[in-house]
């Protein structure tokens, strides 16, 4: 099929045979709820669709439905995700493996509808797994994988696969769609361990004193750590079943003999691949790491790549004001003690296009840092009016 990223997400929910959907429309996620509404209206699924009055209620209803034993789905973007913020903690701490595609859109002010990661980045500490997609195919595939990863007994955590506003959400691409039967073989029925059931009454979400909460936090960290292995397992199973391999937490491109490596996320990765090829033809030994999962963060994987290069560049589509780009902050944490320059590049904020020349500049700055053994500027704003990169 040739479909939008939004359709891929909705179709993913359909073929994963979700039980309950609760969602609220927000640009540029709207197609997801519209497409799923059509699936319901056409009788392609008998899922219960709760057309709630806000994103806060969407997540609240999903948590409740999942706690009652259903496989649930929702989707949002930007302001909608911010409105859910409170409930994201509840979903994760109650170990409810909800899957929620997020269309990355700039968070006001100024109000805008185009791509920026300042919506999902503030949610990185809520206990959700986060994975950033590059293509519409990856969006569909990651919805399927997200259920398999999240519902794994060792994980039991919610997952947030995200895609770039408009660049994926509203752009059609050829997508191979597995059948419901194929997915059913790969993804067995949801087998919750504790649910709200009157034949076996239990309390979920009890008031808890300090004597217990710290252990609950520790359990969240343990399951998040276990997710690393499960992500790789599911990736490999998926590759074997469907023939598409995303390589797990990160994907490397021409890093083997690279002098410098640039870390990218989302659709900029596609542009960066071309730039790597161009520069390789010019004899420049550059490579690329696509940072897929942000939670759990690929600490060991990035360190392993960094051990063989002379400098690293990190692209960020969001800024943690007063510190740096989130991907940069976390990468430096992963690389602690390795004596190589790491340069942070901010570009594409508010949905501004990131073009080949921008990415080439990132590589050139990183190459310069490698040659000089230090970065001239650690934080470089690319394509910003009045600011010299």
């Amino acid at each position, binding site marked *: 099929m040739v479909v939008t990223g939004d359709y891929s997400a909705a179709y993913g929910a359909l073929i994963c045979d979700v039980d309950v959907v609760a969602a609220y429309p927000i640009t540029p996620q709207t197609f997801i709820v519209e497409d799923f509404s059509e699936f319901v209206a056409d009788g392609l699924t008998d899922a219960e669709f709760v057309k*709630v*009055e806000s994103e*806060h209620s969407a997540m609240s209803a999903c948590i409740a*439905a999942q706690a009652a034993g*259903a496989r649930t789905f929702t989707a949002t973007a930007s302001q909608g995700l911010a409105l859910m913020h409170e409930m994201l903690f509840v979903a994760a701490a109650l170990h409810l493996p909800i899957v929620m595609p997020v269309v990355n859109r700039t968070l006001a002010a100024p109000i805008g509808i185009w791509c920026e990661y300042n919506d999902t980045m503030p949610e990185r500490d809520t206990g959700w797994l986060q994975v950033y997609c590059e293509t519409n195919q990856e969006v569909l595939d990651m919805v399927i994988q997200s259920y398999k990863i999240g519902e794994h007994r060792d994980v039991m955590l919610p997952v947030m696969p995200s895609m770039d506003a408009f660049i994926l959400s509203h752009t059609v691409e050829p997508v191979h769609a597995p059948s419901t039967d194929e997915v059913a073989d790969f993804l067995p029925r949801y087998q919750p361990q504790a649910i709200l059931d*009157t034949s076996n009454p239990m309390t*979920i*979400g009890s*008031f808890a004193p300090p004597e217990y909460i710290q252990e609950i936090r520790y359990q969240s960290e343990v399951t998040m750590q276990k997710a690393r292995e499960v992500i790789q397992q599911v990736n490999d199973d998926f590759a074997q079943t469907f023939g598409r391999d995303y390589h797990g937490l990160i994907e490397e491109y021409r890093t083997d003999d690279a002098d410098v490596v640039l870390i990218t996320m989302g659709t900029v990765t596609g542009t960066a691949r071309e730039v790597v090829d161009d520069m390789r033809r010019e004899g420049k030994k550059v490579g690329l790491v696509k940072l897929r999962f942000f939670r759990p963060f690929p600490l060991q994987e990035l360190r392993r790549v960094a051990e063989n290069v002379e400098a690293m560049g990190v692209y960020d589509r969001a800024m943690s004001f007063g510190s740096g780009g989130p991907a940069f902050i976390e990468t430096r944490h992963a690389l602690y003690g390795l004596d190589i320059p790491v340069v942070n590049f901010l570009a594409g904020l508010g949905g501004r296009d990131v073009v080949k020349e921008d990415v080439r500049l990132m590589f050139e700055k990183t190459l310069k840092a490698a040659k000089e053994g230090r970065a001239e500027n650690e934080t470089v704003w690319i394509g910003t009016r009045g600011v010299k990169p």
Partner: protein
Amino acid sequence: MSLNIKDLPDEHLFTPGHTACPGCAAPIVVRNLMKVFGKDTIVYAPANCLLVFGGTYPYIAWKVPYLHEAFENTGACISGVKRAVKKLGKDSLVVGIAGDGGTYDIGIQALSGAAERNEDVIYVCYDNEAYMNTGIQRSGSTPFGAATTTTPVGKKIPGKTQNKKNMAEIMRAHEIPYMATMSIAYPKDFLRKAEKARDTRGFRYLHVFSPCPTGWRHDPALSIEMGRRAVESGMWTLYEAEYGRITDIYKPKRKIPVKEYIRDQGRFRHFTEEMVAKLQEYADHKWKQMYGSLPEEKPE
């Protein structure tokens, strides 16, 4: 046809051993509602006193499945549970029990959404006219003049300056299959309405007047009496409606002055004659609204 107190099962689905204050109306509300609703019931409570006095991990007073998520989302949470239950081929009754803060104020959006969608659930508001759980702050339900910790009796401003919001009428305007106002002081009426809610499909809203000795500063022994005086003074009206049409209004045999309702409550202790008159005006207005006209004045 309707339930009698002596017909209620002995077994508690909300058990003794909870930690509510002496004289609190909420556990009376909850315990009796649960006896009517029965074992095949799933309960949601948002942030409220009930969440806290109902049990602190690892203890719990609930004998039925029970969920808590947050404060402002009772309407959404009971919707989610019910849809899941339905999709999984079961038919458990799903009930949300929120306070007035969680209903009148922070939770009104999710409540309105669930009512508009006509979700097949029961929403219960136990109304104690302030945020009691967090220490007696004003809510949209707090009556005129009442002292709370955020409407203190200061040198310049004596208590709350606004009237109580008419939440029951807001819910009636949703034209849902069933809504009723209730009070623990009228147990037969209470049980009949609970039973009717249980046996109706679609969205049901039960609004129970729930005296709070701690917040209202009255003798815990007087909680039931406060509930009765509220109805007799016109400060609270017992009625029910189906699809927006009022089907029954309970009219007390006598109308007492508001003064009689407020005199044993510390939250009204600072009332001047002028404030009493203003609250009386509110009660009279309500009375006329619900019963058509005021009773004729009789010399004492």
